[in-house]
């Protein structure tokens, strides 16, 4: 049997997710050995229309990105979005809540009009996505798990319960008890609540669980002293797209 042909693509991203894949070290050789990697950056002519699985990192931030993504969608049997930028829009979305002209002026000064941009969006806002591997950056073990499942023709299972569950299993003290606030109650678990373990809070990078109780989360944040503006900022860091896509 021919090995599945795999291609990697990126749009607006920091390449942190592809870096996680490169950083698989020993597992990388196994991953690369099980497939034919036909592209790692950009569609390579002559190869590009012949791949089975496309991994796409990053969000779409320009209209001119769309044809390239449509082409990838057309060519790939399975399209996998990797990392928060691709799955939920990620931090790129922060610019959507500001005036795009002044954002560009801030960066490029009076030549701002030369630089194309439009509101950032996740991959699924432009083309149908078959699978999403969440987190910023993706978790190496989860990637390997999903990768193996794909090779076996199975759909990998991801948790659909909140980070708080992982957090309890990790025996953390809830940060709400320590005067901080957290997006864990509405965020999809699977990361082992690693940010809380490492001494921080959950920022929500794995996106919402399927039916988040966002109202209750807002109430809790308000109870712990956050203003409406601050609550919005909390929600917009990673999950701002759900606000506009409704």
């Amino acid at each position, binding site marked *: 049997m021919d090995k599945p042909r795999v291609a990697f693509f990126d749009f607006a991203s920091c390449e*942190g997710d592809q870096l996680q894949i*490169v*950083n698989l070290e020993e597992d990388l050789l196994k991953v690369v050995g099980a497939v034919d990697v036909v592209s*790692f950056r950009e569609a390579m002519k002559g190869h590009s229309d012949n791949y089975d699985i496309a991994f796409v990192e990053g969000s779409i931030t320009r209209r001119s990105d769309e044809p390239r993504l449509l082409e990838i969608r057309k060519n790939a049997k399975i399209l996998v979005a990797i990392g928060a930028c691709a799955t939920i829009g990620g931090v790129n979305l922060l610019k959507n809540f500001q005036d795009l002209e002044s954002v560009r002026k801030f960066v490029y000064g009076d030549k701002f009009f030369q630089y194309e941009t439009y509101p950032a969006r996740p991959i699924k806002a432009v083309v149908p996505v078959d699978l999403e591997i969440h987190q910023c950056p993706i978790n190496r073990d989860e990637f390997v798990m999903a990768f193996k499942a794909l090779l076996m023709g199975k759909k990998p299972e991801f948790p659909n319960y909140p980070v708080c569950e992982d957090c309890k299993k990790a025996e953390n003290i809830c940060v709400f008890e320590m005067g901080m606030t957290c997006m864990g109650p509405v965020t999809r678990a699977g990361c082992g609540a*690693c940010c809380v373990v490492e*001494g921080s809070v959950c920022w929500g990078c794995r996106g919402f669980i399927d039916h988040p109780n966002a109202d209750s989360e807002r109430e809790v944040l308000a109870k712990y002293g956050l203003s409406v503006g*601050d609550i919005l900022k909390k929600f917009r860091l990673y999950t701002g797209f759900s606000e506009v896509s409704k």
Partner: protein
Amino acid sequence: MYHADPPEVTKKLREMFYSAHYVHSHIAHFYALAAPDFVLGPDADPAVRNILGVVDKVGLPIGGEVIKHRGIAQDIQVMIAGRSTHLVWTLPGGVSKGITEEERAQIEEKAKSCVEFSKFTLQLFDDVVLKNKAYVDLILSEPYQLKTYYMGLVDQNDKVNFYDGKIKVVDPEGKEVAKYTPSEYLDNIAEHVEPWSYLKFPYLKKVGWKGFVDGKESGVYRAAPAARLNAASGMATPLAQEAYEKYITTLGKPVHATLANHWARVIELMYASERLLELAQDKSITDPNVRILPTETPTEGVGVVEAPRGTLYHHYKTDKNGFVEKANLIVGTTNNHAPISMSIKKAAMGLIKKGQVISNGILNMIEMAFRAYDPCFSCATHSLPGQMPLKLTIYDIHGKVVEQLERA
């Protein structure tokens, strides 16, 4: 920004984390992205001119060592900070957790192994590159030279430092022209924009932007390994210093050869490993008091470190709650954006001759000019699966296309 100076132990922990980062970053660049050109030759068949080809040539156990030490360095990062990419361990005033004596001892063992591996890598560079006159000539050949200003962070003794210090700039003759603290960066650097790139082109403000040209009159400067070694007067650890002396004796100073970045990178790999070991042997590093609580209202701050790919500036302005209102970053590769463009142009002009058939080897040698700078870009051009799509168009003086070569 928070006006909080973290405890000494925190600075050491952060530097230790950062040294480990250098170890795996420099190993990746050297073995996966630079070594194929030298071990297999610049015009070797692209199908074998990759990390697997290198492993094939130098032996499987070496390939294992490369992967092992990249893994080791990342393990150290995970041990210190929970993860190696996008960590959340750093906090205003310190870090969220320290390390235990047991972890310190483990890191010490791992660091020793990294020092040994760095010795091996320096030796490999010596055997494969320096003992081959054709390669040394290639490094020193005109198409790969640019005479620019150089930038790098230095400590109080004027030695290369990745984590802390002052930013020093030397001119194309190696003379110091600026030494400033992070918060003074805007007095020293400005950024040029071009409509054909989202990435800006930083230049030395006091010299000015004169276009894509080198020389003393042009504000174009370079950062990253060779530039750091040009800006400083040496390395702060013994084996790295020894290697630095050999480098300077062979190539002179300042080094204008773009391809010398590979050698400088291996010297820095040694420094990072030695520094990692020094810090791991510092018993005070297990001090649990790793954070002071900031008490002042946050305002504005600039932080600078040497990223593997060049001087990295982060500038933030916040509201009174610490929410970022303005941010400006100049990241490693950005510093080198103008020089990268110039190096590619110069290599192309020097290597492509009238009436000559353009071979894959020549295409690769043009790419080498650009690969020398930066792992981010070089991943694109030389990573495991093979090649990036490269399109070369030769125009005549009237703008008519004479030849076009495309590599899939």
